[in-house]
């Protein structure tokens, strides 16, 4: 894993968590959606926070796809789980939700999980997988 690849993982975390926070704020403004009128969710897109959330999530998608092009799904998902810690911080400071001490224990569990997976190999090498560039193969291992 090169520094550039760690930065891709970090951008997945940043765009994902900030995008989710924008969406949450936007949906609070839009109000609860009635189960019988689910298509009203489309009208929520007019809300600027929801729109910003969608833009951030598009950036999240492109960095997520880049990450999956060089690492396994079972590496990328736990490694980017630090975004839930960021989400808790955004919930406190931006959405003013209450965060109890137990939730901080949850945050600690996530941090340990992320630390464990980040230290391991990022890619499973399959015998049939063709890698034309030996340098790229070296980087994956």
């Amino acid at each position, binding site marked *: 894993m090169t520094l*550039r690849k760690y930065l891709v993982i970090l951008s997945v975390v940043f765009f994902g968590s900030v995008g*989710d*926070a924008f*969406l*949450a704020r936007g*949906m*609070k403004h*839009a*109000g*609860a*959606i009635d*189960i019988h009128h*689910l298509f009203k*969710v489309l009208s*929520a897109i007019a809300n600027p926070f*929801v729109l910003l959330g969608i833009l951030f*999530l598009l950036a999240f*998608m492109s960095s*997520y*796809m*880049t990450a*999956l*092009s*060089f690492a*396994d*799904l*079972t*590496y990328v*998902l*736990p490694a980017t*789980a630090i975004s*839930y810690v960021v*989400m*808790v911080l955004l*919930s406190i400071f931006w*959405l003013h*939700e209450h*965060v*109890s001490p*137990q*939730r901080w*224990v*949850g*945050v*600690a*569990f*996530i*941090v*340990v*999980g*992320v630390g*464990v*997976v980040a*230290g*391991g190999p990022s890619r*499973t090498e399959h015998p049939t*997988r063709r890698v034309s*560039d030996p340098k*790229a193969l070296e980087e*994956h291992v």
Partner: protein
Amino acid sequence: MKTLYTWLCIFTTVCAAAAGDILVALAMRRIGDLDDLRRRHGFLALIVRILSSGVLFGGIFFMAIAFFSNLIGLSWADLSVVGPASAALTFVTNALAAKFFLHENVDRRRWFATIFVCCGVLILTWS
């Protein structure tokens, strides 16, 4: 009743997100390392290769279902409840699906990380 709807949304989000993640991961594995491709063939060839992947669009379709389901869930419950609950279940579902469908080497280290992250988000949800 709202709680039931919230959990229904979370269930839909988890199933659609797992299907989406597996299909996108499969597509990106077939396409190859994006940096490597851009260096060797150029940016335009890279975009053409990405846009011509049917599996990728299948994955994005399921991710869109997960996105709207999550959006509806967020209108009924707090971000700190819907986000972690969906994530905890998605982690386990994805690890199993990646092992069986993508044949990834989900070793002890990855199971340990997945379970720790899963426990973390469950504590976040139910605390």
